[in-house]
Protein backbone atom coordinates (compact mmCIF):
# COMPACT_ATOMS: atom_id res chain seq x y z
CA UNK A 1 0.00 0.00 0.00
CA UNK A 2 1.00 3.60 -0.53
CA UNK A 3 -0.06 6.87 0.93
CA UNK A 4 -0.56 9.44 -1.77
CA UNK A 5 -0.02 12.77 -0.05
CA UNK A 6 -1.07 15.71 -2.19
CA UNK A 7 -0.66 19.34 -1.23
CA UNK A 8 -3.09 21.34 -3.30
CA UNK A 9 -4.90 24.66 -3.49
CA UNK A 10 -7.91 24.99 -1.17
CA UNK A 11 -10.24 25.93 -3.97
CA UNK A 12 -9.45 22.74 -5.85
CA UNK A 13 -10.39 20.44 -3.00
CA UNK A 14 -14.01 19.92 -4.03
CA UNK A 15 -13.00 19.03 -7.57
CA UNK A 16 -10.33 16.61 -6.42
CA UNK A 17 -12.65 14.88 -4.00
CA UNK A 18 -15.25 14.64 -6.73
CA UNK A 19 -12.76 13.18 -9.16
CA UNK A 20 -11.56 10.56 -6.72
CA UNK A 21 -15.15 9.62 -5.99
CA UNK A 22 -15.90 9.13 -9.66
CA UNK A 23 -13.02 6.71 -9.83
CA UNK A 24 -14.33 4.84 -6.84
CA UNK A 25 -12.03 6.16 -4.14
CA UNK A 26 -14.05 7.33 -1.16
CA UNK A 27 -11.65 7.14 1.74
CA UNK A 28 -9.43 10.13 2.31
CA UNK A 29 -8.18 12.45 5.00
CA UNK A 30 -7.82 16.20 4.69
CA UNK A 31 -5.61 18.54 6.70
CA UNK A 32 -5.39 22.30 6.59
CA UNK A 33 -1.75 23.19 6.06
CA UNK A 34 0.33 26.09 4.98
CA UNK A 35 3.05 25.91 2.47
CA UNK A 36 5.70 27.54 0.49
CA UNK A 37 7.35 26.53 -2.69
CA UNK A 38 8.26 28.69 -5.60
CA UNK A 39 5.50 31.15 -4.85
CA UNK A 40 6.78 34.62 -4.03
CA UNK A 41 6.63 35.80 -0.45
CA UNK A 42 4.45 38.55 0.96
CA UNK A 43 4.93 41.13 3.63
CA UNK A 44 2.56 41.45 6.55
CA UNK A 45 2.18 44.50 8.69
CA UNK A 46 1.48 44.87 12.37
CA UNK A 47 0.48 48.08 14.07
CA UNK A 48 3.56 49.84 12.89
CA UNK A 49 5.94 47.04 12.09
CA UNK A 50 6.36 44.72 9.13
CA UNK A 51 6.71 40.97 8.97
CA UNK A 52 7.60 38.86 6.00
CA UNK A 53 5.08 36.13 5.40
CA UNK A 54 5.59 33.60 2.75
CA UNK A 55 3.31 30.80 3.78
CA UNK A 56 0.06 30.40 1.94
CA UNK A 57 -2.88 28.21 2.90
CA UNK A 58 -2.98 24.84 1.21
CA UNK A 59 -4.83 21.63 1.78
CA UNK A 60 -3.23 18.27 2.25
CA UNK A 61 -5.14 15.30 0.88
CA UNK A 62 -4.06 11.86 2.00
CA UNK A 63 -5.32 8.75 0.30
CA UNK A 64 -4.06 5.33 1.16
CA UNK A 65 -4.41 2.93 -1.76
CA UNK A 66 -3.09 -0.25 -3.19
CA UNK A 67 0.18 0.06 -5.09
CA UNK A 68 -1.49 -0.54 -8.40
CA UNK A 69 -3.86 2.38 -7.92
CA UNK A 70 -1.16 4.96 -7.45
CA UNK A 71 -0.82 6.12 -11.06
CA UNK A 72 -4.55 6.64 -11.44
CA UNK A 73 -4.76 8.58 -8.20
CA UNK A 74 -1.81 10.78 -9.10
CA UNK A 75 -3.31 11.40 -12.44
CA UNK A 76 -6.70 12.30 -11.11
CA UNK A 77 -5.41 14.63 -8.45
CA UNK A 78 -2.91 16.33 -10.72
CA UNK A 79 -5.40 16.86 -13.49
CA UNK A 80 -8.08 18.31 -11.25
CA UNK A 81 -5.91 20.58 -9.19
CA UNK A 82 -3.78 22.07 -11.89
CA UNK A 83 -4.14 25.75 -12.80
CA UNK A 84 -0.76 26.06 -14.46
CA UNK A 85 0.22 28.92 -12.16
CA UNK A 86 2.96 28.69 -9.55
CA UNK A 87 1.64 27.25 -6.30
CA UNK A 88 -0.29 24.32 -7.72
CA UNK A 89 1.36 21.98 -5.27
CA UNK A 90 3.04 18.63 -4.98
CA UNK A 91 2.19 14.98 -4.64
CA UNK A 92 4.37 12.64 -2.59
CA UNK A 93 4.20 8.85 -2.49
CA UNK A 94 4.96 7.27 0.84
CA UNK A 95 5.07 3.56 1.63
CA UNK A 96 2.47 2.15 4.02
CA UNK A 97 3.27 -1.18 5.60
CA UNK A 98 -0.07 -2.02 7.03
CA UNK A 99 -3.58 -0.71 7.56
CA UNK A 100 -6.24 -1.47 10.14
CA UNK A 101 -9.96 -0.76 10.05
CA UNK A 102 -10.74 0.16 13.61
CA UNK A 103 -14.42 -0.68 13.47
CA UNK A 104 -13.83 -4.33 12.62
CA UNK A 105 -10.20 -4.88 13.48
CA UNK A 106 -9.47 -6.17 9.97
CA UNK A 107 -5.98 -5.59 8.67
CA UNK A 108 -4.37 -5.31 5.25
CA UNK A 109 -5.24 -4.15 1.79
CA UNK A 110 -8.97 -4.82 1.93
CA UNK A 111 -9.48 -2.29 4.69
CA UNK A 112 -8.83 0.79 2.59
Amino acid at each position, binding site marked *: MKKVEAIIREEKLRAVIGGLEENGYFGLTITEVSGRGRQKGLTLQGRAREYKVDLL*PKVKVEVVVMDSDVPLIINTIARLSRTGEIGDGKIFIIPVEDAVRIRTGEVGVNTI
Partner: protein
Amino acid sequence: MINTGDTAWLLISAAMVMFMTPGLALFYGGMVRRKNLLSTIMMSFVCLGLVTVLWMTYGYSIGFAPSTSGFFGGLGFVALRGVGQEPSAVYASTTPHLAFMVFQGMFAIITVALFTGAVVERIKFSALLLFAALWLTFIYSPVAHWVWGEGGWLLEFGALDFAGGAVVHINAGFTALALVLLLGKRKGFPAEAMLPNSIPLVVIGTAILWFGWFGFNAGSALGSNGLAASAFTATHLSAATAAVTWMFLSWRHNRPTVLGTATGAVAGLVAITPAAGFVPPIAAIPIGIGVSVIGFYSMLLLKERLGFDDSLDVFAVHGMGGIFGALATGIFASTAVNPAGADGLMYAGFGLFFKQAVSVLAVGAFAFFGSLVLGKLVDMTVGLRVGSVEETVGLDLSQHAERAYGGSIR
Protein backbone atom coordinates in the same frame (compact mmCIF):
# COMPACT_ATOMS: atom_id res chain seq x y z
CA MET B 1 -36.71 74.77 22.34
CA ILE B 2 -34.57 71.86 23.39
CA ASN B 3 -36.41 69.03 25.07
CA THR B 4 -34.04 66.87 27.12
CA GLY B 5 -35.97 63.66 26.55
CA ASP B 6 -36.11 64.11 22.80
CA THR B 7 -32.44 65.01 22.75
CA ALA B 8 -31.45 61.98 24.81
CA TRP B 9 -33.39 59.79 22.41
CA LEU B 10 -31.84 61.38 19.32
CA LEU B 11 -28.31 61.16 20.70
CA ILE B 12 -28.58 57.55 21.76
CA SER B 13 -30.21 56.78 18.41
CA ALA B 14 -27.27 58.36 16.62
CA ALA B 15 -24.89 56.24 18.68
CA MET B 16 -26.89 53.14 17.85
CA VAL B 17 -26.88 53.86 14.14
CA MET B 18 -23.13 54.45 14.33
CA PHE B 19 -22.81 51.02 15.95
CA MET B 20 -24.61 49.47 12.98
CA THR B 21 -21.73 50.09 10.60
CA PRO B 22 -19.20 47.91 12.41
CA GLY B 23 -22.13 45.53 12.91
CA LEU B 24 -22.52 45.41 9.16
CA ALA B 25 -18.76 44.94 8.82
CA LEU B 26 -19.05 41.78 10.91
CA PHE B 27 -22.25 40.64 9.22
CA TYR B 28 -20.58 40.91 5.84
CA GLY B 29 -17.20 39.75 7.11
CA GLY B 30 -18.61 36.48 8.39
CA MET B 31 -20.06 35.65 5.00
CA VAL B 32 -16.97 35.83 2.81
CA ARG B 33 -14.07 33.42 2.57
CA ARG B 34 -11.47 33.74 5.29
CA LYS B 35 -8.87 35.19 2.98
CA ASN B 36 -11.12 38.20 2.39
CA LEU B 37 -12.44 38.60 5.92
CA LEU B 38 -10.47 41.68 6.95
CA SER B 39 -10.81 43.30 3.59
CA THR B 40 -14.58 42.95 3.80
CA ILE B 41 -14.64 44.34 7.31
CA MET B 42 -12.43 47.21 6.24
CA MET B 43 -14.73 48.26 3.41
CA SER B 44 -17.48 49.01 5.91
CA PHE B 45 -15.28 50.17 8.75
CA VAL B 46 -13.42 52.72 6.70
CA CYS B 47 -16.72 54.44 5.92
CA LEU B 48 -16.93 55.44 9.57
CA GLY B 49 -13.82 57.45 8.94
CA LEU B 50 -14.07 58.65 5.37
CA VAL B 51 -17.78 59.40 5.15
CA THR B 52 -17.84 61.17 8.52
CA VAL B 53 -15.14 63.57 7.46
CA LEU B 54 -16.78 64.30 4.11
CA TRP B 55 -20.24 64.56 5.64
CA MET B 56 -19.22 67.10 8.22
CA THR B 57 -17.16 69.13 5.82
CA TYR B 58 -19.71 69.37 2.98
CA GLY B 59 -22.01 66.35 2.62
CA TYR B 60 -24.51 67.53 5.18
CA SER B 61 -24.69 70.86 3.45
CA ILE B 62 -25.47 69.29 0.07
CA GLY B 63 -28.12 67.20 1.75
CA PHE B 64 -29.78 69.58 4.13
CA ALA B 65 -28.80 73.19 3.61
CA PRO B 66 -31.61 75.38 2.31
CA SER B 67 -31.76 75.60 -1.46
CA THR B 68 -34.26 76.40 -4.13
CA SER B 69 -33.51 73.80 -6.77
CA GLY B 70 -35.01 70.85 -4.96
CA PHE B 71 -32.12 68.73 -6.23
CA PHE B 72 -29.29 69.60 -3.89
CA GLY B 73 -28.74 71.81 -0.90
CA GLY B 74 -26.64 74.94 -0.81
CA LEU B 75 -23.33 75.56 0.84
CA GLY B 76 -24.85 77.10 3.94
CA PHE B 77 -23.73 74.29 6.26
CA VAL B 78 -20.23 73.70 4.91
CA ALA B 79 -17.77 72.82 7.69
CA LEU B 80 -20.69 72.87 10.16
CA ARG B 81 -21.13 76.61 9.85
CA GLY B 82 -24.54 77.47 11.22
CA VAL B 83 -24.94 73.99 12.71
CA GLY B 84 -24.88 74.59 16.43
CA GLN B 85 -26.16 73.65 19.83
CA GLU B 86 -29.54 75.28 19.21
CA PRO B 87 -32.25 73.53 17.22
CA SER B 88 -32.32 74.09 13.48
CA ALA B 89 -35.06 76.27 12.10
CA VAL B 90 -36.56 73.43 10.08
CA TYR B 91 -35.35 70.05 11.24
CA ALA B 92 -36.01 68.39 14.60
CA SER B 93 -37.13 71.47 16.42
CA THR B 94 -36.69 70.11 19.96
CA THR B 95 -33.10 68.93 19.72
CA PRO B 96 -29.75 70.57 18.98
CA HIS B 97 -29.06 71.05 15.29
CA LEU B 98 -25.74 69.24 15.79
CA ALA B 99 -27.60 66.18 17.04
CA PHE B 100 -29.72 66.09 13.90
CA MET B 101 -26.65 66.57 11.71
CA VAL B 102 -24.69 63.78 13.35
CA PHE B 103 -27.72 61.45 13.32
CA GLN B 104 -28.05 62.04 9.57
CA GLY B 105 -24.33 61.45 9.16
CA MET B 106 -24.67 57.96 10.57
CA PHE B 107 -27.15 57.17 7.81
CA ALA B 108 -24.74 58.35 5.14
CA ILE B 109 -22.00 56.14 6.57
CA ILE B 110 -23.98 52.95 6.63
CA THR B 111 -25.48 53.50 3.20
CA VAL B 112 -22.04 53.56 1.65
CA ALA B 113 -21.04 50.52 3.69
CA LEU B 114 -24.14 48.65 2.55
CA PHE B 115 -23.31 48.48 -1.13
CA THR B 116 -19.77 47.25 -0.52
CA GLY B 117 -21.30 43.84 0.15
CA ALA B 118 -21.83 43.44 -3.57
CA VAL B 119 -18.24 43.97 -4.55
CA VAL B 120 -16.24 42.34 -1.78
CA GLU B 121 -13.66 39.70 -2.63
CA ARG B 122 -12.56 41.48 -5.80
CA ILE B 123 -12.63 45.28 -5.68
CA LYS B 124 -9.40 47.21 -5.26
CA PHE B 125 -9.32 49.06 -1.94
CA SER B 126 -8.13 52.31 -3.47
CA ALA B 127 -10.93 52.13 -6.03
CA LEU B 128 -13.47 51.59 -3.29
CA LEU B 129 -12.25 54.63 -1.37
CA LEU B 130 -12.40 56.84 -4.43
CA PHE B 131 -15.80 55.55 -5.50
CA ALA B 132 -17.18 55.99 -1.98
CA ALA B 133 -16.10 59.62 -1.87
CA LEU B 134 -17.58 60.39 -5.28
CA TRP B 135 -20.74 58.49 -4.54
CA LEU B 136 -21.35 60.28 -1.27
CA THR B 137 -20.94 63.59 -3.02
CA PHE B 138 -22.87 63.01 -6.21
CA ILE B 139 -25.42 60.39 -5.30
CA TYR B 140 -26.11 60.07 -1.60
CA SER B 141 -26.15 63.72 -0.59
CA PRO B 142 -28.43 64.82 -3.44
CA VAL B 143 -30.84 61.92 -2.90
CA ALA B 144 -31.00 62.75 0.81
CA HIS B 145 -31.90 66.28 -0.26
CA TRP B 146 -34.65 65.09 -2.61
CA VAL B 147 -36.32 63.02 0.07
CA TRP B 148 -35.59 64.75 3.37
CA GLY B 149 -34.02 68.13 2.65
CA GLU B 150 -35.97 71.35 3.00
CA GLY B 151 -37.55 71.85 -0.40
CA GLY B 152 -36.40 68.47 -1.75
CA TRP B 153 -38.50 67.56 -4.76
CA LEU B 154 -39.65 64.13 -3.59
CA LEU B 155 -40.56 65.59 -0.22
CA GLU B 156 -42.59 68.29 -1.93
CA PHE B 157 -44.09 65.71 -4.23
CA GLY B 158 -45.40 63.87 -1.20
CA ALA B 159 -43.43 60.63 -1.26
CA LEU B 160 -42.97 59.14 2.21
CA ASP B 161 -39.73 57.67 3.46
CA PHE B 162 -39.67 57.45 7.24
CA ALA B 163 -36.14 56.24 7.84
CA GLY B 164 -34.52 55.64 4.51
CA GLY B 165 -36.18 53.00 2.35
CA ALA B 166 -35.28 55.04 -0.72
CA VAL B 167 -32.37 57.11 0.56
CA VAL B 168 -30.60 54.16 2.11
CA HIS B 169 -31.75 50.82 0.79
CA ILE B 170 -32.95 51.40 -2.77
CA ASN B 171 -30.02 53.71 -3.24
CA ALA B 172 -27.51 51.13 -2.02
CA GLY B 173 -29.25 48.29 -3.83
CA PHE B 174 -29.14 49.87 -7.26
CA THR B 175 -25.59 50.99 -6.72
CA ALA B 176 -24.72 47.39 -5.96
CA LEU B 177 -26.35 46.36 -9.21
CA ALA B 178 -24.31 48.85 -11.24
CA LEU B 179 -21.04 47.90 -9.59
CA VAL B 180 -21.55 44.20 -10.15
CA LEU B 181 -22.15 44.89 -13.82
CA LEU B 182 -18.88 46.80 -14.01
CA LEU B 183 -16.83 44.38 -11.94
CA GLY B 184 -18.04 41.01 -13.13
CA LYS B 185 -18.08 37.74 -11.23
CA ARG B 186 -15.60 36.60 -8.66
CA LYS B 187 -12.99 34.15 -9.93
CA GLY B 188 -14.41 30.70 -9.43
CA PHE B 189 -18.04 31.77 -9.23
CA PRO B 190 -20.28 29.82 -9.37
CA ALA B 191 -18.25 26.64 -9.77
CA GLU B 192 -16.47 26.80 -6.43
CA ALA B 193 -18.35 26.66 -3.16
CA MET B 194 -17.77 29.92 -1.32
CA LEU B 195 -18.95 29.12 2.16
CA PRO B 196 -19.14 31.77 4.88
CA ASN B 197 -16.03 31.72 7.03
CA SER B 198 -17.87 32.39 10.27
CA ILE B 199 -21.58 32.28 10.91
CA PRO B 200 -21.09 33.28 14.56
CA LEU B 201 -19.63 36.52 13.22
CA VAL B 202 -22.70 36.93 11.04
CA VAL B 203 -24.87 36.49 14.12
CA ILE B 204 -22.91 39.07 16.09
CA GLY B 205 -23.34 41.44 13.18
CA THR B 206 -27.05 40.76 12.91
CA ALA B 207 -27.50 41.33 16.62
CA ILE B 208 -25.83 44.72 16.41
CA LEU B 209 -27.79 45.63 13.31
CA TRP B 210 -31.11 44.71 14.90
CA PHE B 211 -30.25 46.62 18.07
CA GLY B 212 -29.05 49.65 16.16
CA TRP B 213 -32.05 49.62 13.86
CA PHE B 214 -34.23 50.79 16.75
CA GLY B 215 -32.19 53.98 16.65
CA PHE B 216 -32.42 54.05 12.87
CA ASN B 217 -36.20 53.76 12.69
CA ALA B 218 -37.58 54.87 16.04
CA GLY B 219 -34.90 57.55 16.21
CA SER B 220 -36.27 58.91 12.94
CA ALA B 221 -39.30 60.09 14.90
CA LEU B 222 -36.79 62.74 16.04
CA GLY B 223 -38.44 62.73 19.41
CA SER B 224 -39.23 60.48 22.30
CA ASN B 225 -42.94 60.07 21.88
CA GLY B 226 -45.80 57.84 20.84
CA LEU B 227 -44.66 57.82 17.25
CA ALA B 228 -41.22 56.61 18.26
CA ALA B 229 -42.80 53.78 20.24
CA SER B 230 -44.96 52.88 17.29
CA ALA B 231 -42.01 52.83 14.90
CA PHE B 232 -40.03 50.83 17.43
CA THR B 233 -42.74 48.21 17.68
CA ALA B 234 -43.22 47.95 13.93
CA THR B 235 -39.48 47.58 13.45
CA HIS B 236 -39.20 44.76 15.92
CA LEU B 237 -42.24 42.93 14.64
CA SER B 238 -41.16 43.15 11.02
CA ALA B 239 -37.69 41.80 11.79
CA ALA B 240 -39.18 38.96 13.80
CA THR B 241 -41.76 38.02 11.21
CA ALA B 242 -39.30 38.13 8.36
CA ALA B 243 -36.75 36.07 10.30
CA VAL B 244 -39.29 33.34 10.94
CA THR B 245 -40.54 33.47 7.36
CA TRP B 246 -37.08 33.15 5.85
CA MET B 247 -36.32 30.34 8.27
CA PHE B 248 -39.34 28.40 7.05
CA LEU B 249 -38.45 29.08 3.42
CA SER B 250 -34.96 27.72 3.93
CA TRP B 251 -36.52 24.77 5.74
CA ARG B 252 -38.76 24.09 2.78
CA HIS B 253 -35.66 23.92 0.59
CA ASN B 254 -33.58 21.89 3.04
CA ARG B 255 -33.07 22.94 6.66
CA PRO B 256 -33.85 25.98 8.81
CA THR B 257 -30.52 27.73 8.63
CA VAL B 258 -29.06 30.28 10.99
CA LEU B 259 -27.75 32.24 8.04
CA GLY B 260 -31.21 32.31 6.51
CA THR B 261 -32.85 33.39 9.74
CA ALA B 262 -30.34 36.20 10.18
CA THR B 263 -30.78 37.28 6.58
CA GLY B 264 -34.53 37.28 7.05
CA ALA B 265 -34.23 39.52 10.09
CA VAL B 266 -32.19 42.02 8.12
CA ALA B 267 -34.63 41.89 5.23
CA GLY B 268 -37.48 42.57 7.64
CA LEU B 269 -35.64 45.55 9.02
CA VAL B 270 -35.02 46.86 5.52
CA ALA B 271 -38.64 46.63 4.45
CA ILE B 272 -40.05 48.34 7.52
CA THR B 273 -37.58 51.21 7.27
CA PRO B 274 -39.62 53.52 5.02
CA ALA B 275 -42.86 52.47 6.69
CA ALA B 276 -42.05 52.32 10.40
CA GLY B 277 -43.50 55.69 11.41
CA PHE B 278 -46.41 55.69 9.00
CA VAL B 279 -48.06 52.29 9.32
CA PRO B 280 -49.83 50.67 12.27
CA PRO B 281 -47.37 48.31 13.99
CA ILE B 282 -49.42 45.24 13.17
CA ALA B 283 -48.88 45.90 9.45
CA ALA B 284 -45.34 44.74 10.11
CA ILE B 285 -46.62 41.18 9.88
CA PRO B 286 -47.58 41.25 6.19
CA ILE B 287 -44.55 43.41 5.48
CA GLY B 288 -42.23 40.96 7.19
CA ILE B 289 -43.70 37.97 5.41
CA GLY B 290 -43.66 39.73 2.06
CA VAL B 291 -40.08 40.86 2.16
CA SER B 292 -38.74 37.44 3.02
CA VAL B 293 -40.61 35.74 0.24
CA ILE B 294 -39.46 38.37 -2.25
CA GLY B 295 -35.91 38.45 -0.95
CA PHE B 296 -35.50 34.69 -0.85
CA TYR B 297 -36.69 34.13 -4.38
CA SER B 298 -34.89 37.17 -5.77
CA MET B 299 -31.71 35.74 -4.38
CA LEU B 300 -32.35 32.34 -5.93
CA LEU B 301 -33.24 33.90 -9.22
CA LEU B 302 -30.38 36.37 -9.46
CA LYS B 303 -27.62 34.20 -8.14
CA GLU B 304 -28.61 30.67 -9.04
CA ARG B 305 -30.54 31.18 -12.24
CA LEU B 306 -28.98 34.26 -13.72
CA GLY B 307 -25.51 33.71 -12.29
CA PHE B 308 -25.39 37.36 -11.23
CA ASP B 309 -22.56 37.57 -8.72
CA ASP B 310 -23.73 40.17 -6.23
CA SER B 311 -21.45 38.66 -3.59
CA LEU B 312 -23.57 39.20 -0.49
CA ASP B 313 -26.92 39.72 -2.20
CA VAL B 314 -27.17 43.44 -1.60
CA PHE B 315 -29.64 43.93 -4.41
CA ALA B 316 -31.90 41.07 -3.37
CA VAL B 317 -32.01 42.15 0.29
CA HIS B 318 -31.67 45.92 0.17
CA GLY B 319 -32.75 46.76 -3.35
CA MET B 320 -35.78 44.49 -3.54
CA GLY B 321 -36.47 44.89 0.17
CA GLY B 322 -36.35 48.66 -0.12
CA ILE B 323 -38.67 48.71 -3.13
CA PHE B 324 -41.12 46.43 -1.39
CA GLY B 325 -41.00 48.54 1.76
CA ALA B 326 -41.55 51.77 -0.13
CA LEU B 327 -44.55 50.33 -1.93
CA ALA B 328 -45.89 48.74 1.23
CA THR B 329 -45.80 52.19 2.80
CA GLY B 330 -48.08 53.22 -0.03
CA ILE B 331 -50.42 50.44 0.99
CA PHE B 332 -50.48 50.49 4.79
CA ALA B 333 -49.71 54.11 5.72
CA SER B 334 -52.35 55.79 7.82
CA THR B 335 -52.75 59.32 9.08
CA ALA B 336 -54.19 57.84 12.26
CA VAL B 337 -50.66 56.67 13.05
CA ASN B 338 -48.84 59.75 11.85
CA PRO B 339 -50.80 62.88 10.93
CA ALA B 340 -47.74 64.13 9.08
CA GLY B 341 -47.96 61.12 6.79
CA ALA B 342 -50.69 60.13 4.37
CA ASP B 343 -53.24 57.41 3.82
CA GLY B 344 -52.26 54.43 1.71
CA LEU B 345 -54.20 52.05 -0.49
CA MET B 346 -55.86 50.43 2.48
CA TYR B 347 -57.47 53.64 3.59
CA ALA B 348 -57.60 55.83 0.49
CA GLY B 349 -56.95 55.74 -3.24
CA PHE B 350 -53.85 55.10 -5.31
CA GLY B 351 -52.41 58.57 -4.66
CA LEU B 352 -49.75 57.68 -2.16
CA PHE B 353 -48.94 54.37 -3.79
CA PHE B 354 -48.24 56.14 -7.03
CA LYS B 355 -45.98 58.66 -5.34
CA GLN B 356 -44.09 55.85 -3.70
CA ALA B 357 -43.63 54.14 -7.04
CA VAL B 358 -42.29 57.35 -8.52
CA SER B 359 -39.79 57.71 -5.70
CA VAL B 360 -38.64 54.11 -6.20
CA LEU B 361 -38.08 54.73 -9.88
CA ALA B 362 -36.41 58.08 -9.46
CA VAL B 363 -34.01 57.00 -6.75
CA GLY B 364 -33.36 53.58 -8.29
CA ALA B 365 -32.60 54.99 -11.75
CA PHE B 366 -30.47 57.82 -10.43
CA ALA B 367 -28.43 55.49 -8.23
CA PHE B 368 -28.01 52.94 -10.98
CA PHE B 369 -26.97 55.23 -13.80
CA GLY B 370 -25.03 57.56 -11.56
CA SER B 371 -23.07 54.65 -10.15
CA LEU B 372 -22.38 53.28 -13.61
CA VAL B 373 -20.85 56.59 -14.59
CA LEU B 374 -18.85 57.05 -11.40
CA GLY B 375 -17.74 53.44 -11.40
CA LYS B 376 -16.57 53.67 -15.00
CA LEU B 377 -14.64 56.79 -14.11
CA VAL B 378 -12.90 55.01 -11.26
CA ASP B 379 -12.19 52.04 -13.47
CA MET B 380 -10.55 54.27 -16.05
CA THR B 381 -8.38 55.98 -13.46
CA VAL B 382 -7.25 53.69 -10.64
CA GLY B 383 -8.90 50.52 -11.96
CA LEU B 384 -11.76 48.77 -10.19
CA ARG B 385 -10.57 45.22 -9.86
CA VAL B 386 -7.57 43.58 -8.23
CA GLY B 387 -5.29 41.36 -10.31
CA SER B 388 -5.98 37.69 -10.68
CA VAL B 389 -3.18 36.54 -8.38
CA GLU B 390 -4.22 39.07 -5.75
CA GLU B 391 -7.74 37.74 -5.93
CA THR B 392 -6.53 34.17 -5.49
CA VAL B 393 -4.27 35.03 -2.58
CA GLY B 394 -7.08 37.03 -1.06
CA LEU B 395 -7.62 40.70 -0.46
CA ASP B 396 -6.51 40.60 3.17
CA LEU B 397 -2.95 39.92 2.18
CA SER B 398 -2.91 41.72 -1.14
CA GLN B 399 -4.73 44.91 -0.17
CA HIS B 400 -4.03 45.18 3.53
CA ALA B 401 -0.96 43.04 4.16
CA GLU B 402 -2.74 41.49 7.10
CA ARG B 403 -4.18 38.17 8.09
CA ALA B 404 -7.32 37.90 10.20
CA TYR B 405 -5.81 35.32 12.50
CA GLY B 406 -2.22 36.35 12.52
CA GLY B 407 -1.10 34.00 15.22
CA SER B 408 -2.09 31.03 13.15
CA ILE B 409 0.15 29.53 10.55
CA ARG B 410 -2.37 29.67 7.79
